[in-house]
């Protein structure tokens, strides 16, 4: 399951970002009629097609795996959080339909109708991603039911769907999708431009990618801050683990880097900034931040994993924001980003940054919630299937996904990026 999710999330992220790139490129084509834009739109639609297909089948696996691995969880949670899944199903249906229309309809539709089909793909893809995150957010802040004798009663699926974590998490994930895709595409074309600065194809691609990457990466800083403040309020154990923060204190120290040690209850080798954690978590330099020691050890997530994943996510996110800021400065000075050789190098280096940050962020939210599958309600160990020998399907799916991942990467490279523009 974890493997399937880790794999699927990459495709989901690009599946949300790519259609927007494709639609923007086609719009430029309709406006300017410069063939380079049509070429770009077609290439990106190929990429979308490959990513969507693999994303759709790996998503199908997930919809079954929820039951195959966590039957108890689903029996419990299905009626409460089925709502966003049902809505996601509808959004996904719409996306699949219009993707078919878009990919195979270049000659069958008017240019305008074709473009709108692309818009429908981009919108429904984003919306379906948001609904899935809503369901995940519920696992972090379960609402919309009352527990009586360990059984959920008085269900309110709407309240469950619009749980307190839903909006901060959905915003964070959607921005992550756009930032990741934008930076990855910009990075690839930046790398190409370092060899061939005048290529109109790569210049156009870089420009569109940056339109998405820059605002998303900058807004992500704000959204990340909101998310952290939310976690501080609702999941103090998770926050303490994120920060490698063991002792409850006022004016808590922010630790950047470092390796938390659960035995000695210290986080050595970190850069420490006094009082900064209190400020970031509660907007008050003297606020009290609960340390892990305030909670029973049986409720701790694996602290080192969560802390390090969090450092990776924030670090890479900050680098992406820094690159975006650089681009904004160039825009203000009316210089094309494609003409700045150091920026191109920086972007090329950042190509995989978004993906790594997304995976790290996923570790933060999922591992950070352990040992709970539903925060404070159900423990992960109680939810797992009674089926023995789970390691067999796990290894088989892992092998399959690695294989597919390699193929997709190779196809995107060979079919879309490497081939010379017409």
């Amino acid at each position, binding site marked *: 399951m974890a493997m399937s999710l880790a794999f699927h999330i990459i495709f989901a992220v690009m599946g949300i970002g790519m259609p927007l790139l494709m639609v923007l490129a086609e719009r430029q*084509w*309709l406006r300017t*009629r*410069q*063939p*380079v834009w049509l070429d770009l739109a077609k290439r990106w639609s190929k990429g979308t*097609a*490959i990513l*969507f*297909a*693999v994303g*759709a*089948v790996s*998503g*199908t*696996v997930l*919809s*079954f795996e929820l*039951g*195959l691995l966590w039957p*108890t969880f*689903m*029996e419990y*949670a*299905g*009626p409460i959080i*089925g*709502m966003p*899944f*049902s*809505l*996601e*199903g*509808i959004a*996904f*249906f*719409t996306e*699949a*339909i219009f993707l*078919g229309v878009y990919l*195979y309809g*270049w*000659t*069958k*539709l*008017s240019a305008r109708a*074709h473009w709108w089909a692309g818009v429908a793909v981009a919108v429904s893809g984003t919306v379906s991603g948001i609904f899935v995150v809503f369901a995940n957010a519920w696992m972090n802040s379960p609402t919309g039911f009352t527990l009586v004798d360990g059984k959920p009663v008085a*269900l309110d699926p709407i309240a469950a769907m619009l749980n307190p974590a839903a909006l901060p998490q959905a915003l964070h994930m959607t921005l992550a999708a756009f930032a990741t895709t934008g930076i990855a595409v910009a990075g690839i074309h930046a790398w190409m431009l370092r060899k061939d600065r005048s290529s109109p194809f790569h210049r156009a691609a870089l420009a569109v990618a940056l339109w998405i990457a820059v605002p998303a990466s900058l807004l992500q800083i704000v959204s990340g801050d909101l998310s952290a403040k939310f976690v501080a309020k609702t999941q103090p154990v998770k926050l303490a683990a994120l920060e490698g923060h063991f002792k409850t204190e006022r004016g808590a120290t922010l630790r950047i880097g470092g390796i938390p040690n659960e035995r000695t209850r210290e986080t050595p080798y970190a850069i420490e900034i006094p009082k900064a954690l209190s400020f970031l978590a509660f907007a008050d330099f003297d606020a009290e931040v609960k340390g892990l020691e305030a909670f029973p050890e049986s409720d701790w997530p694996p602290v080192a994993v969560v802390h390090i994943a969090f450092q990776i996510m924030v670090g890479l996110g900050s680098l992406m924001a820094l690159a975006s800021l650089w681009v904004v400065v160039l825009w203000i000075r009316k210089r094309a980003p494609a003409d700045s050789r150091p920026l191109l190098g920086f972007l090329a280096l950042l190509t995989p940054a978004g993906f790594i940050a997304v995976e790290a962020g996923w570790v933060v939210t999922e591992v950070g919630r352990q040992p709970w599958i539903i925060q404070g309600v159900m423990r992960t160990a109680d939810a797992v299937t*009674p*089926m*023995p*020998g789970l390691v067999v*399907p796990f290894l*088989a799916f892992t092998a*399959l996904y690695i294989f*597919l991942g390699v*193929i997709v990467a190779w*196809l995107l490279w*060979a*079919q879309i990026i490497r081939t010379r523009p017409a």
Partner: protein
Amino acid sequence: MPEPLLPHVLAFVTMLALNAYVVLGGADFGAGVWDLLARGPRKDVQREAIAHGIGPIWEANHVWIILVVVLLFTCFPAVYAYLSVALHVPLVLMLFGIVLRGSAFTFRAYDSTNSPVQKWWGRIFSIASTVTPVVLGMSVGAIVSGAIVTPPDATFTARFLTPWLSPFAIAVGGLTLAVFAFLAAVYLTVEAETHDLQEDFRRNALGAAVIVGACALATLITGRETVSKLTDTLLTHTLAIPLQIITGVAALSAIAALVTRRYRIARAAAVVPVSAIVWGWALAQFPWMVPGVHSVTSAAAPAVTQRLVAYGLAAGAVLVVPSLWVLFSVFKSDTMSAFERVDTAEYRATDTPPKERS
């Protein structure tokens, strides 16, 4: 009218979605079977027609199964959990099939330069298309026969393997494959652009019809001992006789239309008996969703969830039904003439000269 109404409506919608998956998504799998079996001088043309027929629609068709799963875990969570445990092994196999089929088809479509590799994708696509329906059918056979109901302390084999490996389940698996292949061949007769190609698919369709008949017979024979209830209900229920008459008439009309080369009529008629098999299954098992364990009413989620899902489905239908209509009217309305290769076709908007050039 069964009481309470809402769970029955939702169970009905779930079956309707499954029915749609069988006649639409099922045919996409069936097309893969014909890709595997493509023979003779026109085998490449056949494969191309197959790829062209399912390319624009298979992903939308595939969503029906996701809808079934989502409805099941939202509205009948106990059934979903039960089936997920009991059918763990075949469902995992089916998922492998689904992943390989979809990815390989897409990889083949977008890997236009490298022909030896492309052949491999074609092979994986067609084999996965053939194996997946069999496993799906075996799972259904295990459910309908009640074999999935095993004590939790049974051995691994008795609990997780034998239920879906019974002769009856295997017969249902064969029937599923044959039905999917039959549907695909009938649809392809309408979409084939040349007379020769039509004749190929017509022959395939008639051959598949014979195998469907044989598998149906095998299902009844193997089922007589283990699932006398199924055959009993199918013969005695008040709805059974009309259902069987409709099935018989439609099946014969489809075959007659194929023989006389009236392909559009055959396509319309072929859907009926296939759907009737799906509903016959539902009827045979009713009111049980897991025979003897979970019924439509006992497994139903709380009323508030059901009501919200019903609203959601109604709202979704407003969005999805017209969209589906657009999809099928763009790609399937004049399937006799609209048959250009997508990757060589030029974008219509390129007909107008560019306003400016850089």
